[in-house]
């Protein structure tokens, strides 16, 4: 099976799972006592947020290995991961305000957590812009790797400034040292959604990787024919 078809199948499975997450979250998971139905968005928002940050870290790791090994596959993966990360950041930045309006009474607030996600989104855009601004493939890969590594190192600093800044945003209730503090039925729905988003990430990246592969093949062919 070709790479792009494999990616399509994974994405399809992920989308079916995501539909399952909707059904389970809306019909089979209890409504949160204080936030009411608005809390349902948590099942989309948090997995997307986790993958937004994970994608940036993977871009950075791919960058480190690229600088040492010079393998173009790593560069293609970084490119794919950055684009998918941008999409996930968009999901986080869209679902967040939809939840914020009924709960906080405002679409947007200059809270540290929101600001840092927005800046992560800008970081992704800057990364993709640099990729677009360099013609030479070798140079492009190297510049992108340098920027990706710096971006990866910026993520913990953004997190640190979150904890120092006073924040309106709910504190983490799953990924915290004392363990998750929510009912099992909600946790199961959430884990189910995390799985769907993980597959979605893999599916998108695989398809995007195939596109880069085709582009590189075309560029090589064009270079050979002069």
């Amino acid at each position, binding site marked *: 099976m070709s790479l792009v078809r494999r990616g399509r199948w994974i994405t399809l499975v992920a989308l079916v799972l995501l539909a399952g997450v909707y059904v389970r979250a809306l019909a089979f998971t209890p409504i949160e006592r204080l936030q009411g139905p608005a809390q349902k968005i948590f099942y989309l928002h948090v997995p997307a947020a986790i993958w937004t940050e994970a994608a940036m870290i993977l871009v950075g790791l791919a960058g480190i290995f690229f*600088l040492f090994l010079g393998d173009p596959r790593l560069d293609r993966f970084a490119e794919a991961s950055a684009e998918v990360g941008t999409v996930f950041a968009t999901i986080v930045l869209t679902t967040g305000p939809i939840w914020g309006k009924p709960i906080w009474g405002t679409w947007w607030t200059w809270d*540290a957590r929101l*600001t*840092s996600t927005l*800046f*992560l989104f*800008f*970081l992704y*855009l*800057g*990364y993709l*812009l*640099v990729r677009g*601004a*360099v013609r030479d493939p070798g*140079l492009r890969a*190297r*510049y992108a*790797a*340098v*920027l990706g*590594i*710096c*971006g990866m*190192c*910026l993520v913990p*600093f*953004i997190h*640190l*400034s979150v904890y*120092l*800044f006073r924040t309106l945003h709910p504190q983490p209730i799953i990924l915290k040292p004392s363990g998750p503090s929510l009912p099992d039925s909600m946790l199961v729905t959430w884990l189910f959604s995390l799985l769907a988003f993980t597959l979605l990430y893999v599916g998108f990246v695989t398809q995007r990787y195939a596109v880069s592969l085709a582009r590189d093949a075309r560029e090589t062919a064009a270079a050979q024919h002069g």
Partner: protein
Amino acid sequence: MAELLRQAWAVARKDLVLELRTRTALVSAVVFTALVLTLFNFGRDPTAVPTLDLAPTVLWVTFTFAAMLTLNRAFQLELENQALEGLLVSPLSRTSLYWGKLIANLAFVAVVEAVGLPLFVLFFNVSVSRVLLPLVGVIALATLGFVAVGTLFSALVIRTRFAELLLLVILLPFLLPPLIGAVQVTARLLAGRPLSESVGYLKLLAAYDIVFVSLASFLFRFTVDE
């Protein structure tokens, strides 16, 4: 190490001599700082917002924007007559080239800040005499971090299209942690709070400096080589 510093100083000295003879960039940056501070004064309503609430933001936005203007010139000027190739074939190590550029940039930004701070005190009527020493310390700490990243990125963008604009786009997300830290500490200092209240932010600034100075020193070689 001594050799590294000696080479770095040679590069920095070259840049500083060049700038002292023409003075274009430095004078422009200083005039720009004065203009921005003047404009900020008209962009607020002094009867509605107390000056002290706005002062740290005004100070730091001015400093970061002026710094970004001076960062552009560091490598742009080496493009003329292929001076960069000359530097790269000379027996300089890449790290000392980076450090030299970093030292020169820090000197420029320091001059801009040294002119900007008294103007800020004059225009906004804030008293800094009691906190001058810690304030200068915070300025130095925050400046080192973002100039280190900025020097690396200015080398990265020179061979791209729209270099000046691209530098701003990729550098601004990286300014967030130093800017948050610097503004918070400055606000506390100007309000007469003890320095011990800002320990968290000072640690953040110091950690940012350590991580990004070492990271940029290491990654720099990948941005200049052909």
